């Protein structure tokens, strides 16, 4: 079980996000239509956006707290962030990408990860030649090798062919349960949210409209 403290206000341009949830779950789904603030939440968790006020903590480790002026740099946050557009480094092959943030101690061993995400045939490939699912697997591996406290996935199946989706979902469940890496899973697909996450937060226009067990509130 991981704990997520997400209590903050973030305004940018005309958009305002308000969230005040403390959740215990192995995986948390952020569910809602585009523009509802899902991505803003994971970017704030990764330290790429700064809330005006509030507090963000994962497993009790405070990443941001406006009251005590804590704002841990993205580099020190130990979050494995895979954005929706994946952002594999275009000038490196898959191996160099995957190993970029490798941290000794704490991180998942590479052979284990290679097996879990079926990486071996990809390692020498050029990033531009990868399919949507292959990109996603490489990016998840890259994030996990940095030894993160939490894996933040933004619409990880959006660019993946339907037949490949189940295998990635299965890999994610093993990452969650066997490697014990908690997951925050951004999606606008109900079945994905229910498959991966026990708890879901439903967002609309920057506000939390529901929060509870994924299978119950998303039915």
């Amino acid at each position, binding site marked *: 079980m991981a704990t997520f403290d997400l209590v903050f206000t973030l305004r940018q341009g005309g958009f305002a996000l308000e969230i005040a949830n403390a959740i215990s779950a192995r995986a948390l789904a952020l569910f809602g239509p585009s523009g509802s603030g899902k991505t803003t939440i994971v970017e704030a968790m*990764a*330290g*790429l956006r700064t809330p005006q006020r509030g507090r963000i903590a994962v497993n009790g480790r405070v990443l941001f707290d406006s009251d005590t002026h804590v704002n841990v*740099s*993205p*580099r020190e*946050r130990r*979050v*494995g*962030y895979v*954005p929706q*557009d994946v*952002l594999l*480094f*275009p*000038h490196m092959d898959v191996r160099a990408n995957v190993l*970029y*943030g490798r*941290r000794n101690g704490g991180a998942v061993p590479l052979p284990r990860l290679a097996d879990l995400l079926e990486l071996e045939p990809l390692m020498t490939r050029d990033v531009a030649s990868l399919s949507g699912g292959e990109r996603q697997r490489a990016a998840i591996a*890259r*994030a996990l090798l*940095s030894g993160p406290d939490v894996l933040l996935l933004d619409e990880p199946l959006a660019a993946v062919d339907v037949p490949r989706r189940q295998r990635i979902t299965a890999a994610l469940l093993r990452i969650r349960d066997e490697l014990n890496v908690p997951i925050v899973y951004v999606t606008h697909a109900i079945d994905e949210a229910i498959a991966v996450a026990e708890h879901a937060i439903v967002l609309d226009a920057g506000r939390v409209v529901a929060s509870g067990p994924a299978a119950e509130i998303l039915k």
Partner: protein
Amino acid sequence: MIEIHEIARFTTAAALAATLLMLVPGVALAWVLARRRFPGKAVVEAIVSLPLVIPPVATGLVLLWLLGRRGPVGRLLEPLGIEIVFTPLAVVIAMAVMGLPLLVRTARPGFEQVTRRYEQIAETLGAGPWRVFATITLPLAARNILAGALLGFSRALGEFGATIVVAGSIPGRTRTLAVGIYSFAETGQDTAAAILVAISVAIGFGAVLISNLLLPADAGSYK
């Protein structure tokens, strides 16, 4: 003919040295102008481009004042036994100053095109600022930097006005292609001048051509 060969060799070597000399400050300036906001930025931009628009002879005179024995830089170097004016080093410095604006102006859009989010992802993976710069920013801007360096090199190769003021035209010591063309033409040595013109055209054409090929329409493909 031996002199022509010597002039071509010296000019190419000096232009290469000038390119190396301008590389670090040029890349640093391009990055700062692409990424930082600070008071007086427009003034810094204007100063960097100044050698492109003022008469090169004027740039040469400014360098002469700075580097001459009584100049602020020359005075510091004199006790060390280092003299710059009218030496090959003066040629290299004049070339570097004249080439720098082209390097900065070409490299800058390269840094502007690098998607910040690649750098942010590298940060979340634990990379510090120098590692991010060396492994993400610099390689993604490399085409522009290389194209800018080639343009700077070409400019250095053809430099005349600043060079003749600060380095003179000493055969076998500071005489460059451009200065050589002028000297030979002045003294009626038309064949020698024509050969130097041909050499200038060949090297300059090659450098500009490669520079342009490095900056095709998809120069921003790493978006």
